[in-house]
């Protein structure tokens, strides 16, 4: 009877466990195994090469490190420009202001759209010959600014970073707004009675209480932006000449372009380790910041 009851309990988690084992645990193990092989994905023979793939990534793959730098650059723009914008918008909407729900609705439209749709529409807006941005620049009297935004090496990466921020700021905005609304209003009223001005209240109440939320948004931004790539497929495909190439695009290219499955897995592992280290550092940093305030 008891055994039957226990078996019944396991039946409830069995479907989840089976799917999870096949589609998460097995691939997880497989990534580490394949990373040590040279394999084209089809042939029955896999050539064991030890850590050679990792050696090649670290010492020879210049494009890989360049893609890493590009991702870091986009992440930097997202952390500074995108999150500052999100925070300012959240501050503005936290006030007793009309149309608050309207703004909140609109700001979260870009995040719900797919990266493919966003990328293709912006590609069309930024198009060098027929794009509306260039046509406006001419109309407004700045013809010298007209360029092929996405195929000019000087502007391509910045355009991608800005469109990424455009698509992403709604997330930060919603989380910041939720955080601001948990701050008890009495704190501000008490501070006002004590004669504090707006800046002092912002500096001494809002900022310290928002530190944990800011850290959370920062971690989410870094993890999300470093791994972003679909938007880039839709906008530039990594071009011109690797100027907008990012790590996950490289993994995809190793797999589909050069049929080096083992190398693609090794790239995935290296990148995963870097991401884990970054989020660990950020986590420790946020613990420290909490202690200070």
């Amino acid at each position, binding site marked *: 009877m008891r055994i039957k009851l226990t078996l019944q309990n396991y039946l409830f988690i069995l479907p989840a466990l089976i799917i999870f084992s096949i589609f998460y645990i097995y691939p997880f193990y497989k990534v580490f195994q394949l990373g040590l092989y040279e394999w084209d994905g089809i042939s029955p023979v896999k050539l064991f090469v030890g850590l050679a793939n990792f050696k090649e990534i670290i010492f020879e793959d210049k494009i890989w490190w360049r893609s890493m730098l590009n991702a870091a650059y986009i992440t930097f723009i997202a952390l500074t420009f995108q999150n500052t914008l999100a925070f300012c918008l959240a501050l503005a909407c936290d006030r007793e202001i009309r149309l608050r729900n309207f703004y909140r609705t609109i700001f979260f439209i870009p995040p719900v759209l797919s990266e493919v749709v966003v990328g293709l529409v*912006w590609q069309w807006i930024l198009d060098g010959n027929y794009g509306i941005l260039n046509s406006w620049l001419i109309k407004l009297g700045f013809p010298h600014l007209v360029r092929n935004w996405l195929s000019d090496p000087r502007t391509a990466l910045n355009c991608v970073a800005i469109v990424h921020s455009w698509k992403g700021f709604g997330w930060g905005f919603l989380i910041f707004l939720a955080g601001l609304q948990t701050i008890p209003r009495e704190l501000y009223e008490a501070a006002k009675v004590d004669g504090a001005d707006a800046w002092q209240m912002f500096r001494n109440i809002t900022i310290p209480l928002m530190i944990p939320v800011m850290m959370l948004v920062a971690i989410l931004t870094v993890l999300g932006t470093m791994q972003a790539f679909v938007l880039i497929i839709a906008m530039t495909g990594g071009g011109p000449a690797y100027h907008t190439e990012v790590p996950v695009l490289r993994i995809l290219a190793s797999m589909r372009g050069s049929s080096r499955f083992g190398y693609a897995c090794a790239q*995935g592992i290296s990148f995963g380790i870097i991401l884990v280290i970054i989020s660990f550092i950020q986590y420790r940093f946020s613990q420290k910041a909490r202690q200070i305030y």
Partner: protein
Amino acid sequence: MNSFFYYNAKKVILNIIIHIFLLSIAATCLFPLIWMIGSSLKTQQTVFRDFSLIPKEMHWENYYLAWKQGGFGRYFLNTIFYTVSVVLGIVFVSSLAAYAFSRFEFVGKNLIFYMFMAAMMIPIPGSFVPLYVLLNKLHLRNTPLGYILCMINVGLSTSIFLLKTFFDKTPRELEDAARIDGCSKLGLWWHVALPLAKPVLAVVVVFNTLNVWNEYVLALIIFDSRQLMPLQVALTTFQGEFITQYPLLMAGLTITAIPVILIYILMQKYIIKGVTQGAIVE
């Protein structure tokens, strides 16, 4: 009296500045969408010259052409099929598991639960490579079933987490009453727990719907045949074919985007709840 007016004037001006700031950002959010829809209603001749947001002549037939000639009808139905199957699968599988994690005792319960939670935290960039190999081995690549199972797995951990947190908070009295009436465990899950969990099920359904609808990379590596592709992959794969028919591409983009925007506007409450809950759980 003077200082009162001064104070009010300052407040009004500040409010105006804030509204200008908010409105200008809102405009940049909406502009690309309006531009997309506007372009989808122009003709191949006017789309490169006419820069008006709302074209004078509306060519609605572009949508018919995109649906039929462009094949977007097919891709649209594929996406709907995948989305519905995956979301039903996730709701079923994850609510069963979450219920067990919340209510029952069994050996290894915590270990298994934390394994699911760890999957939410550990990023495996490029996990599509081993998945491709695996599906090839199982002869599930280029099949709807292979894609659906992969996508169920993608949404599993978060959904189990949301549902378990909810079940933990709901009182057991109702279930106890039902048990006395002779309801089986499965019956308790189906007749008592699931109906009670409607608010959180809505969050699970909405988030996973958006996620599957917008998914790209797994569909890209899994599907070779044109007949099976969902919208997102078809858009990037056949983009080149539309160079001669730009308004049709824009119509295709609109067809892809409108359902998502509708779901978002109708189910906004649950989306905001989901996003902010994640933030507060931390």
